[in-house]
């Protein structure tokens, strides 16, 4: 059996990629995808631990995260569409109405 630590290392790497993506990319969709990557790395961690503990609740949690992520996608994409309609662009750099 593959040791749990392998899964953990993989999910840590995925999480780091996600964080880097959010911080460095400027396209709203890609930033959004990076966030999803973060959530899924957490899911992988849950599943790995659940497998190690032989405990169902960790796997149930994954379902919760997936459902919530789906809800977030719905809202997020709607927002992106709305912004695209107004600006014809989804670059975060062009979101500069509000001085930051």
């Amino acid at each position, binding site marked *: 059996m593959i040791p749990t630590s392998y899964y953990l290392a993989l999910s840590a790497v995925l999480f780091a990629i996600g964080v880097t993506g959010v911080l460095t990319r400027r396209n709203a969709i890609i930033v959004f995808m990076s966030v999803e990557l973060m959530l899924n790395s957490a899911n992988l961690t849950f599943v*790995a631990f659940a497998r190690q503990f032989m405990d169902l609740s960790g796997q149930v949690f994954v379902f919760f*995260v997936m459902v*919530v992520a789906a*809800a977030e996608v719905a809202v997020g994409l709607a927002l*992106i569409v709305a912004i695209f309609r107004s600006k014809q662009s989804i670059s*975060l750099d062009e979101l500069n109405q509000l001085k930051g």
Partner: protein
Amino acid sequence: MTQTDFIVLLPVLVLAGWALVLLLVDLFVPAGRKALTGWLALVGPAGAVLALTLWPNGGALTGFGGMLAADGFAVFLHLLFLGSAALIILLALTYLPRAGIERGEFYVLLLLTVSGMLLMAQAADLIVVFLALELLSIPLYILAGFARPRLSSEESAMKYFLLGAFASGFFVYGVALTYGAAGSTNLNAIVTAAQTGLVQGAAAAQALPVARSLLVAGAALILVGLGFKVAAVPFHMWTPDVYEGAPSVVTAFMSVGAKAGGFAALLRVFVTAFPGLAPQWASLLAILAALTMIVGNFAALRQGNIKRLLAYSSIAHAGYILMALPAAGSSFAAQSDYAVGSALFYLLAYALTTLGAWAVVMAVERQEGDGLALTDYAGLAARRPGLALAMALFMFSLTGLPPTAGFIAKFSLFRAAIDAGYLWLAIVGVLTSLVSAYYYLRVVVLMFMRPGAAQALARPTLDLAVGVTALATLLIGLLPGPLLDLAQRSVLTLTR
């Protein structure tokens, strides 16, 4: 679902259920008469308060296998959230038509986000905390963009959404690591696991060092996630932009409800689940609190827009409330309880004062984000003395001058910090309060001393909201006894 489960969840059920009913009802309310939906929406909070009366007086219940709690802490916060929601609905009744965004969904979304907050106050399991966090946040993302197609509102929503989702990512990953360390996401089980070093459900005892470092990492990530929600430095960068762009009525609710929700989770999670790690997180949180107070107050000095000023002010106040957390990590139960009680009382004082201040902002605001510069307040006292007086009272309360609620709240919090040995933190708090006096008083000076043509809307619901909050701010400042006692009795009863 047993009867106890039902009773424990009833306030949330009532509110969320009423939101869904309202969604249907709204279909039959003709456009232009959406105020009807608003008035109907008030039934939700009222019903939830009624549902609260079913909870045992003074005792604590748990429901759904220990996932939800119904204790004094939850009651206090429920009343805070529901009261704020009612005030916000009153304000929205005048604000929405004026801003040309009168749509019935507003009230539905508001009730939904409030039900997320209620759930947050009751959550005794990290899964529930996460669900509550999202139930709280997602409607707020939409509300932030409610003034669509105004670009600044859309931009605000986008920023809030991306950073909120980013924060959720941290939070979930933190929960996952905590789960890995403790074998459960239940707050009580985490405590047990941390104390015994044993992971439930595992065949053999987990090696303690590994679990502990995972637990520390998990707690740190959860802190980052919640830090975003309460706008603590260094996770505060989104606040001014989002607050400025969102419709004022939404901003008002964000600065009160979302913050109180975040603090509910922080207090519940850190005091209940991670007391064993207190030596690690207490000093870290103390430093965060100090940074938040310093950055928030100093940045507010430079603002010329009232919404941005209040945004930085809300960051600063997050810093003050954060002071309670290291104190709550104290190993002495009395000190810890006192700190939690003080944080609750501070949240209440802050909520009342801030809502009042935002109500005045909405009265002065004109079409399309006009009338938001500080200079638009010049001469307000001459035209609307009552309104200006109320605003002055709110500013004094935010500064922490007696005899307002803000003074008592700050006094209590500083006491908690000093009592737990964080004298330096209290000193930072006191000094930054002095800095804050400068920018809060500037608003007062503008209203009373400068000539100007400030105009303000006069509507019964608006005046009612301002009057109620101003009166409460003053009354709590003069006679804090009963409410303070209530806050102090509303401690976390989960682990004891």
